[in-house]
């Protein structure tokens, strides 16, 4: 494989990161991004004027994300997309206490080490029963409220929310209050000020939770962590990260994933015919939808990636969706095909920061999708597909709502 590295990459005016998905297929990357994927690494103009880089190739993405010479510290980065939440600020503040996503080794390692043992494949599989239970409860409620319900509200959001409550040890009495704040926090329609308020409320809530677990530990992750050397402030930050990372991502995968399956009846039929395909379907959905995108990194020193020299101080943005549609890695990449081997996708990132909760996300989806389609064999969209509102400018891509309907079961006399 050879790429033209002789041409001066700065000769043309560097493009900005294309974000507009709504003109084409809602599951495809923006057309402009696909056009930029002819070279694995190229120049990119950032909203603050910085001229950095864009990595779209699968190998380039893995190289950048696994190389410790690329930093995850927020304050070293230029953001590839406008950040309304920053307001007038031009410099990005460092990670708040406990937000280990914005740290490098060894600070990052300290948090990561404390947490990985809680998210092993085995532990997450043991949680499958709880996921089944929550899913069934949500589906019961959905059946009662419909037909015609918003699947995001009835199913995609509550399933991961209940699992996070379970993991963090939020009591049943507090779950509604907690979920309300959380819903506001992730609601794209809410303005920045209201979301900031919800953020404070959630943070406060988790702080109280940490104090409660320290006073009276129960059988959950936060209680476990009170025995570590993390301070209460750090623990509260960690709780917030787990919440944000574990909720919005999975919720959007469930919402957009259902939309994708309903839009590809042959694939849905294949999954229905063979529930053994569930795990594979989840991997393909992760690849095909790539909802968490993009991932920026800052070069700490000069690094060469696929023949391009990225200089110290420059930001390189990894486009997960482009990498997951790299034809060198995934033949016919734009085809949604649950029979393909999608393993090796970078939907969970790669390197030291690769998603900590990925095994939980897998369990949730592997249980939830088949349960949904088993309960509602005639599930279909209640609006034309082009009327489904998309989260165009959110950090995590997905559907704002997904109105669905089904044929009510005949009354069976019970």
């Amino acid at each position, binding site marked *: 494989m050879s790429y033209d590295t002789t041409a001066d990459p700065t000769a043309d005016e560097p493009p900005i990161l294309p974000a507009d998905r709504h003109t084409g297929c809602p599951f495809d990357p923006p057309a402009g991004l696909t056009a930029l994927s002819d070279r694995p690494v190229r120049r990119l103009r950032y909203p603050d004027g910085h001229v950095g880089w864009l990595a779209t190739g699968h190998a380039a993405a893995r190289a950048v994300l696994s190389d410790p010479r690329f930093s995850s510290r927020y304050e070293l980065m230029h953001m590839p997309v406008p950040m309304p939440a920053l307001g007038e600020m031009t410099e990005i503040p460092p990670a708040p206490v406990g937000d280990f996503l914005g740290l490098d080794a060894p600070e990052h390692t300290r948090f990561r080490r404390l947490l990985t*043992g809680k998210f092993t494949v085995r532990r997450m599989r043991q949680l499958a029963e709880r996921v089944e239970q929550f899913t069934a409860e949500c589906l019961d409620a959905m059946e009662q409220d419909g037909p015609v319900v918003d699947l995001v509200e009835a199913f995609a959001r509550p399933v991961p929310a209940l699992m996070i409550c379970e993991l963090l040890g939020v009591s049943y009495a507090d779950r509604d209050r907690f979920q309300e704040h959380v819903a506001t926090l992730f609601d794209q329609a809410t303005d920045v000020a209201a979301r900031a308020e919800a953020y404070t409320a959630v943070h406060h809530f988790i702080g109280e939770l940490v104090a409660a677990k320290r006073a009276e530990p129960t059988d959950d992750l936060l209680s476990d962590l009170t025995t570590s050397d993390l301070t209460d402030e750090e623990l509260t930050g960690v709780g917030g990260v787990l919440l944000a990372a574990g909720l919005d991502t999975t919720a959007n995968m469930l919402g957009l994933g259902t939309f994708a399956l309903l839009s590809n009846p042959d694939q849905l039929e294949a999954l229905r015919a063979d529930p053994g395909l569930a795990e594979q379907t989840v991997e393909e959905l992760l690849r095909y939808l790539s909802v968490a995108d993009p991932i920026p990194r800052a070069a700490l020193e000069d690094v060469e990636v696929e023949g391009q020299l990225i200089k110290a101080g420059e930001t390189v943005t990894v486009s997960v969706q482009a990498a997951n549609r790299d034809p060198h890695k995934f033949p016919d990449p734009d085809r949604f095909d649950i029979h393909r081997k999608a393993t090796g996708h970078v939907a969970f990132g790669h390197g030291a920061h690769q998603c900590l909760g990925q095994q939980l996300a897998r369990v949730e989806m592997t249980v939830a999708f088949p349960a949904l389609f088993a309960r509602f064999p005639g599930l279909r969209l209640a609006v034309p597909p082009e009327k489904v509102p998309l989260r165009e400018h959110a950090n995590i891509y997905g559907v704002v709502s997904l109105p669905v309907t089904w044929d009510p079961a005949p009354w069976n006399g019970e």
Partner: protein
Amino acid sequence: MNDVREPLRLSVDRERCVGAGMCALTAPEVFDQDDEEGLTVLLHPEPAPEHRAAARMAAGLCPAGAIALIPTEPTDS
């Protein structure tokens, strides 16, 4: 190279492991994760032929490059 008849020897570097669990997911017969830290545990440094392909794949998928394939002496079979 990816011939399952070819013997395979593995080593893991627990210092590099980030506990993402790709190995235990991909080749559960060969890798596990310990309960305390979630770091990789190599169950079979020389996996049986039927597990070699999965073990190679796990090495390729590991986000931290913590799994190494150690070259073995070619056998004359």
